């Protein structure tokens, strides 16, 4: 269901504040809607987004049904060391979608 895109700089200077942009395809079904037969459509959203830098959480977002479909999130982190920046999107159904990028810090 979900396909993620992330934009992370490949290189940075130590201490530089870098921007990370992410988006993921997801309906973000709010749980407020009804189908053609007037039956409530169950809620299914991405409820948490986490960014980890070499395993340490550096940014987290709690999402509620009022976040638009195909959630777009941009934020900043400090480039502290060479390594891996990972993103995690937690779906209401228990699935976790991931994306990762390597960064070289000089």
């Amino acid at each position, binding site marked *: 269901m979900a396909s993620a895109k992330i934009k992370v700089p490949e290189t940075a200077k130590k201490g530089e*504040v*870098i921007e990370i942009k992410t988006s993921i395809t997801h309906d973000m079904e*709010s749980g*407020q*809607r*009804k189908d053609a037969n007037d039956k409530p459509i169950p809620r299914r959203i991405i409820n948490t987004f986490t960014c980890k*830098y070499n395993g*340490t*959480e*550096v*940014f*987290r*977002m*709690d*999402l*509620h*049904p*009022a*976040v*638009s*479909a195909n*959630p*777009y*999130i*941009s*934020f*900043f*982190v*400090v480039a*502290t060391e060479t390594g891996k920046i990972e993103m995690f999107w937690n779906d209401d159904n228990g699935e976790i979608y991931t994306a990762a990028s390597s960064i070289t810090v000089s």
Partner: protein
Amino acid sequence: MVKPESGLNRRQAMVAMGGAACVGVLPNLAWATPAEAEAAVKALIGSTATTEGRVQLKLPQIAENGATVQLRVLVDSPMTAADHVKAIHILAEGNPLPGVASFHFTARSGKADVSTRIRLGKTQNVHAVAVMSNGSVWRAKEEVKVTVGGC
């Protein structure tokens, strides 16, 4: 995004139509109220006193499509271990549920500056509440006129 004055009547008509469409599709939909939004703020931050300021909430004055409204929120802070923004909470007082999103930062976030896209069911105030590492709480609000609700 601001239309010329001549578009006003059409816009007002569309607001009316949008409202009618929402009610038609969702006859039992209950909107939150400003009081419920304040209760949600209290649930997030406790009884801490809040001060207007330091938070910049950037939203369009008029959102033609309430299903996707650009939101940017930033708080001026050195973002050091001793002095940083811990969290920013976004609440919409006129949506079915007031909670929109919460952003959690550390000193390693570098900047408390985030952008996302949100849903707004109707014209309403959106609130941003920022919790600092020293425990102080700052807030801002912006009104968004929604042409077609994204409920």
